[in-house]
Every structure is written in C-alpha cells, then in structure tokens.
C-alpha cells in the first residue's frame, strides 16, 4: 500500500506514510495543519476524529509524492500507540517544544520507541527528522546550541533537525522537503518488496459492487 511507486508513462507516483510524534502539546497537530492546510491556531485542542492528513507534492516534473502525515491520536499520548499507527511508515518527525525542556528530554525515548516499532524493509531504522518547534518563542536552555543539537542528532540517529514555527510558518516546508528527499533516496536504493498486488482491502465499494455469490 505505501511504497506503491508505480510508473505510469514516465511519471512516478509515491505514497509515503510519515509519522509525527512527540510529547503532548509540542505542536504536532499545528505543524501538520500548517503544512497541509496552511492554517494555524493558538487554541490547543486534542486531535479528535482525524487519522492522518494528506499532502500532495509535485516533487518534480516526473514525480508525484503523496504524503500521509499520521498524527498520534492525541490520546495515545502515553506512548502506547498501536502497531496500526507504525506499520509501513517510511519516515518520521519527532517534535519537541523549545520552550519546555522536558519535551526535549523525552525525544530520545520517542526515537527509541520509533526504532523498536518500525523498520525499513532492509532492517534499517526509518529516516527521521527532529523538529524544534515554537522557535518564535523564548527558548529553554538545551536547544539553543546548534552544535549540541547536531551532536544529539548524530548520537540519536536523526538525519538532522530544524527549528520550526507552525505559527510563523518557519521551516515547516523545508523540513518536510528534507525528509522526503531522504525517503526518496532510500526508496531508490531498495528493491521493491514482493508484489503486494493480491492484498485485499475491505471497503464499502467492493461490498456493494460484488455480486451476490461467486460460488456454485
């Protein structure tokens, strides 16, 4: 389903599932909404009823990327996401809030959790990018030193980090672009897994369309 990069007449289409994780209130939903819907709001509310948001990117003249951004349902906040959430993800953003040091402290935990729950087909961890969100506001100590952050990323296995602000629309687009570049690079280096063509999706269309019985 996810890596279904089929090439129809030169144009390649990709569907990538990307996870957005991090502590409660760091702005995961805000980043997604900024990126996908160009919206922002100060009012925090837990995310209800939304699985993922979809962003369609015309990557270049021959590549279309459809990015599914999976928010943790606000209420899986204790880090107990189901496998449904992780499975077949090909990239992740881990978000923390620069104004609250405790949310940065939790980053390694989230990263570790991520790496233990999902892997690429070749067994490597999925590419992930660290987002230091709310950079428009006054920072807590840790994230203010770029060298420290670079080192942290190296140690923890992040591809890199961005200071972002969903509010002022800083670096959100850039961070996404950076992650997608890496996902695409990964994708090119990997052979496709065995065809998933005969997988069955259950939905109301097939339920209605099918004939009464194919048996005798």
């Amino acid at each position: 389903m996810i890596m279904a990069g089929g090439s129809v007449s030169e144009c390649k289409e990709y569907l990538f599932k990307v996870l957005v994780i991090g502590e409660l209130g760091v702005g995961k939903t805000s980043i997604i909404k900024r990126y996908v819907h160009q919206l922002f709001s100060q009012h925090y509310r837990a995310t209800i009823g939304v699985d993922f948001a979809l962003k369609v990117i015309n990557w270049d003249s021959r590549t279309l990327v459809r990015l599914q951004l999976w928010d943790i349902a606000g209420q899986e906040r204790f880090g107990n996401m189901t496998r449904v959430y992780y499975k077949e993800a090909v990239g992740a953003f881990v978000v923390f809030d620069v104004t609250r040091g405790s949310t940065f402290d939790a980053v390694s935990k989230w990263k570790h959790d991520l790496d233990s729950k999902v892997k690429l087909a070749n067994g490597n961890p999925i590419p992930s990018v660290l987002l230091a969100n709310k950079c428009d506001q006054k920072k807590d100590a840790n994230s203010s030193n770029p060298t420290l952050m670079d080192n942290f990323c190296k140690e923890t296995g992040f591809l890199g980090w961005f200071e972002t602000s969903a509010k002022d629309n800083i670096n959100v687009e850039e961070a996404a672009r950076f992650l997608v570049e890496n996902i695409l690079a990964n994708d090119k280096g990997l052979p496709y897994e065995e065809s998933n063509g005969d997988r069955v999706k259950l939905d109301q269309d097939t339920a209605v369309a099918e004939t009464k019985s194919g048996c005798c």
Partner: protein
Amino acid sequence: MAADNLPTEFDVVILGTGLSESVIAAACARVGQRVLHVDRRSYYAANWASFTFNGLLSWIDDNKQGGQSPEEVLDWSGKVESGEDILPLSTMDTSISNLEVFCYTSEEPEEDEEEKKEDATPISTLSPAPQSEGEEGNQATSPTDNRRNHEGETTLDILSESPPEQQDQEECAPLAEDQQILSSDGEPQGEEQLSGSAPTQAKKKKISYTKIVKEGRRFNIDLVSKLMYSRGLLVDLLIKSNVSRYAEFKNVSRILTYRQGKVEQVPCSRADVFGSKELTVVEKRMLMKFLTFCLDYEQHPEEYQDFTERSFWEFLQNNMLTENLQHFVLHSIAMVPRETHTEEGLRSTQHFLRSLGRYGNTPFLFPIYGLGEIPQCFCRMCAVFGGIYCLRHSVQCLVLDKESGRCKAVIDTCGQRISCSHFVVEDGYIREEQRKGVEHKHISRAVLITDGLLLQSESEQQISLVTVPPLEPGAPAVRLVELCSSTMTCMPGTYLVHLTCPSSGSAREDLQPVVSRLFTKPASAGEEGDGSDERPAVLWAVYFNMRDSTAADRSGYDLPGNVHVCSGPDAALGSDHSIRLAQEVFRQLAPHEEFCPPAPNPEDIVYDGDGGQGEGAGFSEAAQAEEGAAEEAEESKEKEASQESSPVEVGEMPDPPPAPLAEE
C-alpha cells in the same frame, strides 16, 4: 509518557485489549463517550496478540513463571468514602497453561548454510536453542539437559510423564516411525535408529535457530488462530465502521484436508469442483447438486425434514454422496463433528458457501501481519476518537456503592481513583470469588515454524486451511492454518502453521499426533534419506492451552450490573462470538446509539480557515455514508476533496453542512 496524570472521570473504563473489549472501546468513543482503555500487559490485544519471534520467547518466559507476580496488597481505605465497598481484581493471569517448546533445527550460525549441512547437530552445547524433547526423548533427557535449555524446556514433571498418545500411535506401524523421527532429534540412540529413514532436505535451504532469531522481527505469531469468513460479522463490522482502512488482507488460497494418510485439496468453488482431478464426473455432478441445495436449504425442507432429529453425517450418507464427498462436506466445508444435527450441519455448510467468492476462491480472509492486528485496528479507531490508552497499567479494584450495588469508580495501579459509569473487563481479571458460577473450557494450540508447504503447488505463497478429522474415535478434529511469508507473519523460506482444537488433554497430547503424521524433522548430521518423504520439517514448535471462557453466562459472575465481562477467544474458526458479545455490551452501555457508524475518511475532513478555530477538531461526517472506506477511490478523490474543490468550511459548528462529494 507516564500514566501519572490520567483524567479522573470517564464514561467507560475498559480493562483488557482483546477483540471484544477493543470493539466496545471503538464503539463507545465513536459515539462521543469518554473512554479509558488500559491493559496490564506491555502489548495490545491480550490473548489475541501476535508477537515477533523474540516477543513470543518473552511471552513464553512470562507465562512459564505463572503469570505476573502478584502485586502487593495496598490499603485503599484512603480512597474510599463511607457507603462504599471495595471489590479487588485479580493480578494473576492464569489463562495460559501447559506451555512446551521444542526446537528441531540446529543452532549453527546461518553463514555457509549450504556447506554446513553435514555438520552434526550439537547435542550438548550450551545455547539458547533447546534440543528437541519429544516423547521418546523424554526418558533419555536428564534434568540437567532440561535446565540448559533456557526457553525450550517445560516443567520437568510434564516431561517425565509418558504421553498417553504414544501407545495408540505405536499401533499404527507407519506412524510410529514418524514419531521417532520427530522425537529423537539430538539423542544418539535416536540417530542410530533413524539413519537411512530420514528424508534428505538437500533441496531445501537449511534454516538454523540462529537465523530464526536473527530474522525474528519478520514473524508475527498469533496466540489465536482464526480466519475471517468473508461474510462473517467481523468482516461486516470492519467494512461498516471503516476500521477496515487500517488493515489489509489476503485470501486464503486453499482448503486442504488430511485423508487416508495424505494431504489433499478440497474442491469447494465451482471452478475447483470442475477442475478437480480427484473427483469423478459423477461425483462432480453430485457435489454441485448437493452444494447448490445447501446454499438455500431452507427453501427445500422436504429434503431434510426426516433428518431433523438425526445427525448430519447420516443425512450425508443418505444423500448417496460417495465417501470422498462425505469427507469433504462434513470435515472441510461444514467443519462439524459427525454427531452434529442435520440442520446445524446445513447451516454451517451454507455459511461457508455464502462466504465463498466474495473476495476470492475460498470463503476466508487472513489479515496481513496476523490476527493480532484486528483488535489494534479498533483501538486505533478508539484513540482517534479521543479514547485514552495506557498499557502496563491496570485496575486494582472497583469502588462499589453499597446502596445501589453499582460500580461507581475504579482505583488504578497508581492508586488513583477514577470514576466511571460502566466498567468493561476481560474475564481473566476477575477473581475466583466472583466467578464461582463460571465454567470454562480450554483450547489446545500449537504453533510450528516449518520449512515447506504441506501440499506442494506451483506457487510457494499459499495460505491454506487444513482440516484434520479425528484421528481416532472421540478425538477432536484439528484445524491447521498454514501461513506463507507474504502474509508478513513469517520469514521468507519458512511457513507458520497454527494448530487449534478444543482441549481434551494438554495441547501437546491433543495435537502432537497430528504433527507427527503431517510433518517430519529436519535432516541432521550425516543422514541420508531416500527422498521419499516429502513432508515439511518442523524447525521449532510451541504448544500451550488457553482458557476458553466463552461458554460463561453473565449470571455466572457475581458482579455489579454495570460491570461487563468479556470472554477471551474461543476455539471456533470465525470471530462471530466476540463481535456479538461486543455488540450486546455496547447496547447496554449506550442503548440509543448506533453501533460503530462509519468513521469519516481523512480526506473528507475539511478544516475551517478562520484561524480562531482551526486548531479544533471540527470534521464533517455528512458524507460518510456514501464515502465509506473508499480507499480505492481516494486517488481520484483526494485532490478535489482536500485541495481543489471549494471546501465547505467546518469548524466547531454542531451541524456541519455536507462536505463536497467528490465524483469518481
């Protein structure tokens, strides 16, 4: 990520993440109830869980220690007011018993697999891979030998028992030999007996235990083995609720059966019947006529009214079906015991036939990544609709109102009091005192990792349901599900075989006779077979019994009226029981609400743009009925729905106008 700051008020608190509990959780959250869903385990899906190979080894270790260690009894007096009583819950999980693990493959590292074929299987090395301890091996295996196997051993008293089936088997000459093959791996005297009789596995690549461990994450080993009837309640619910969006499935590709000492394919679809080489032309016509009748047997009561008090078996015989056909219909299509009443047999046959052809050539689907995905799909739906999840978290006790006798709150493992209007709980958390009137049965389970298909075919990727009729009178019929690597439940080159039957003895007593008939063991050290044995080899096996409390009646539990007990899995092939149970409980919790209405498609959710409300979770459901889980349609739809078409703005308004219906 700690659960120390949970809200203190919920509509429903649910303990246990098995299928019924998870469906109830999703249903409640979907209609706006505040749901807290917890499980004391560190994983989802309780006894429905699936594990990586290494995860399964940990699970085995945990259960060998007799469930979780009892927590210290705390003093709740500070949490309770006057007029309240405390009802403690059980802290021990006793639903799994008779765990036994056997490893038949070698522990050599996987490199140079080809060359190392002739290396001896280490007999006495200290290693994580246990040597096999089959029945013959029992006597030869000393306690010291057992101790060295850190995950392979079972309790010693079980091992020292002489297995009851042994005698029976020795009566069947060809099978006694198989039994030795399976049981004497690694035992020197066994090697001698065996030389010359074991098959050569030269054509197959040897897979070592080390390799299995190394590739452990490619396994998703289900504790429960079920298939989904294409027209069963579970499939209908997945579709209706849109929870199906979280999962993908594979068609079960073959129905097989064990008959007269060999495995053969059961013709069940029209194409199968006419394409069958085993059936004569007359039989083909006979079978088609009979199956056509079964499809709407209610319309022809005259055909079976004389048999309503008699068994389905007699009915089949009376219908002049040949012995071949009787076997197929009784064991593989109706899948009922001989003594089943005619009408029930007809109903089972009809259920099978009606599910045929909906998605594929057999009536069954299997979820990619295993059955353990299904409860998690419902949990995800619950979480998306605001349900709060905590694993490794439990409820110590219920707070009862003395006057009404109802449960008004629970006290969690952090000692926090959480009020709720209803409490839903998995059977396993109920103490003996409250379940005196409850009788339960057991399910016998085995999981094998094997190196080949039970019945060779053009494709190595086959998912098969294999029915094995009782090997002797009174024994249960055993059901096998053989999964290939494209189901994402086992590593390439291996197959996962699940065996299930209602228990009459321990899982190994019930199932090993079938295992010894259908499988062999890997060729080892210098053995030269004549290659005549084409049976797949078992590389690794685990046996266990699981409690089946599905027969329990609500009245058997001594519990408040707003405490609802969910039984774990049953031995049946489908999941209808659990879904029906979830629906009943939901009706008591929310009598006037719809059960699992379709969730909106993410692409149909349109946020309003006026900034002030954008962060909110306004969403439109207006188009849901039509949109369904139309993931197939998403390609053409999403561009319009999410971007280009003029979006209807929906914010916090209680009655959102319909979102634009995208044309396909």
